[in-house]
């Protein structure tokens, strides 16, 4: 049982990381980035390609993260501008459609060029014993990285001026503008950050097992579920929801079955919307 829960936590931390990127972008601008899962896959493919040239894993990882962050900035400066010019429901719909289009383009290109592409960062060594359960080194690495990132993010948003600025936009955009904060600029930075996070997710996911080129849609779905359950716009909420759902996922998959598990996770998202729309830690 402990083993299952620990596996759940490992998975959960990955979920959390996945959710943060999406929840930030939504909280700031009301846009659900349906291309998020594809961005993760893009990072994975970039890392895969760089590693084929015998580059050190760390540098390859860096390349992947930077590449996706760069793509994110590009997307923000082009497509997102058009989206943010709209307001309310128009913006929501346009955001959905445009990011969907981007998702198709990225997914199509990647699956066409690298139909069997996959990233697997193998961490050798004996399993480490945590609470009496042997855990693969890859999982340990993945979790530690995720925790570090979580800590950095929480410190950043809680303590730095810029981080406070981000939170203020989420709470009252007009108020933020009146104190001299430029929401456009902040949104671009955060979108780039979400891209970088997608890259980090690609790395950590591929440490636990191969991340294939087809995983995009599934990743987007999980990101969406975590975002909704955690609360739109809340970083801490995304992590909390991620870990909870990760544990639920592994417990359910272990004791009940695969298909039901997915339904349960989806149900959690629906339930959250129906009963407590602001999510666990949302406003």
């Amino acid at each position, binding site marked *: 049982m402990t083993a299952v829960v620990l596996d759940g936590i490992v998975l959960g931390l990955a979920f959390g990381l996945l959710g943060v990127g999406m929840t930030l972008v939504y909280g700031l601008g009301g846009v659900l980035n349906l291309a998020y899962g594809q961005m993760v896959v893009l990072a994975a493919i970039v890392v895969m390609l760089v590693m084929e040239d015998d580059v050190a894993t760390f540098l390859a990882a860096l390349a992947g993260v930077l590449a996706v962050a760069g793509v994110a900035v590009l997307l923000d400066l082009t497509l997102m501008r058009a989206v943010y010019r709209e307001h309310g429901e128009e913006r929501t719909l346009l955001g959905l459609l445009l990011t*969907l289009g981007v998702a198709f383009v990225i997914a199509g290109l990647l699956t066409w060029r690298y139909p069997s592409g996959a990233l697997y960062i193998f961490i050798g060594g004996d399993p480490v014993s945590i609470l009496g359960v042997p855990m693969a080194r890859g999982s340990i690495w993945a979790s530690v990285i995720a925790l570090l990132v979580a800590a950095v993010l929480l410190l950043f948003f809680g303590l730095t001026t810029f981080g406070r600025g981000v939170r203020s936009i989420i709470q009252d955009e007009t108020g933020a503008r009146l104190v001299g904060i430029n929401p456009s600029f902040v949104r671009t930075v955060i979108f780039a950050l979400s891209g970088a996070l997608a890259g980090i997710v690609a790395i950590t996911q591929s440490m636990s097992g191969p991340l294939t080129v087809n995983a995009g849609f599934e990743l987007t779905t999980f990101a969406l579920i975590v975002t909704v359950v955690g609360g739109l716009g809340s970083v801490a909420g995304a992590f909390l929801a991620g870990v909870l759902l990760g544990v639920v996922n592994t417990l359910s998959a272990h004791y009940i079955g695969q298909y039901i598990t997915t339904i349960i996770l989806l149900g959690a998202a629906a339930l959250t919307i129906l009963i407590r729309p602001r999510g666990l830690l949302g406003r």
Partner: protein
Amino acid sequence: MARTRSIGWAVLPIVVVAAILAILPSIWFGDSPYTTSLAVQALVFAAYGVGFNLIFGSTNQLFLCVGALAGIGGYGAVILTDETSLPMGAGIVVGTAFAALVGGLLSWISVRRSLGIIFTGIVTLVFSLAFANLLLGQREYTGSETGLVVTAAADRLADDHVGGYYLFAALLVVFLLVFRALQLSHVGWAFRALRDDEVAAELAGVDVARYRIYAATLGSAMIGLTGALLAYSAGFISPATYSFDRVDVRVLVLVAFGGLGTLLGPVIGAGVFAILDEQLTTSLELREVLYGVFVLVIFLGFRRGVVATVVSLYDRLMAGRRRKPILESPGD
């Protein structure tokens, strides 16, 4: 909204469409079953589109579960007729009824909890995916991924491709007539009002909640009916037939392309995408890329859809005359 004199004008676009559909087989199909099935697929999606238009285009409820509703119609009908000895007709009725019920229920929930567009979208998306998983999980009834051969399908329906074409063409024309009738009635007025400004509509006496639920129920019925007929005419269904990526994404894009809330939007969208499909017979992946590019270009450019753009061009041309535009796009 004049009555008698305008009925002719009102129905004109549908008549034109019906005429085109009637002669299409002879000028385009040749004897190619491939082209025929492409046309049938376009008709199916246009039919889905009209239903979706009723739900989203007319009452702003983002139902990302078109595939699932069609699947309820399809699987509901087929499982019933396969397990019992009821005729195909019963299956169709039951399947459609189930779909209508589920759609109405989803709408009711969305209304009761005052879910906005995004949350309605997410809840229905969740429902879609959950339904897909349900189909996959319940092997006993649904055959899971391997799919279900529709034993109760009338042979004449399953093998006669051109017959299938005319069946769906007729279905589409009926749907369009229903949609048009609604558009021109007080219901259509209520729809326009609530899309324009919900609060104002409520204050003007429009029971927004009721209209939403009615629209969703009717739209879902249309979608379910189409799904059921699809099952019987194809002779074989699997979860992939009604999956989110196969159905919903496509319907959303083609209706938005043609023009949300407009009568001919789904028809134009389905037609254009059918032609696109025919031209892009190369790799599936590249087709995906082109769809994506298409979506981006369209929504960065003609936000309101082709029909609305054409209508506004037409209106500008007719600026001098006091004629009412033929292709009426409500409330945009």
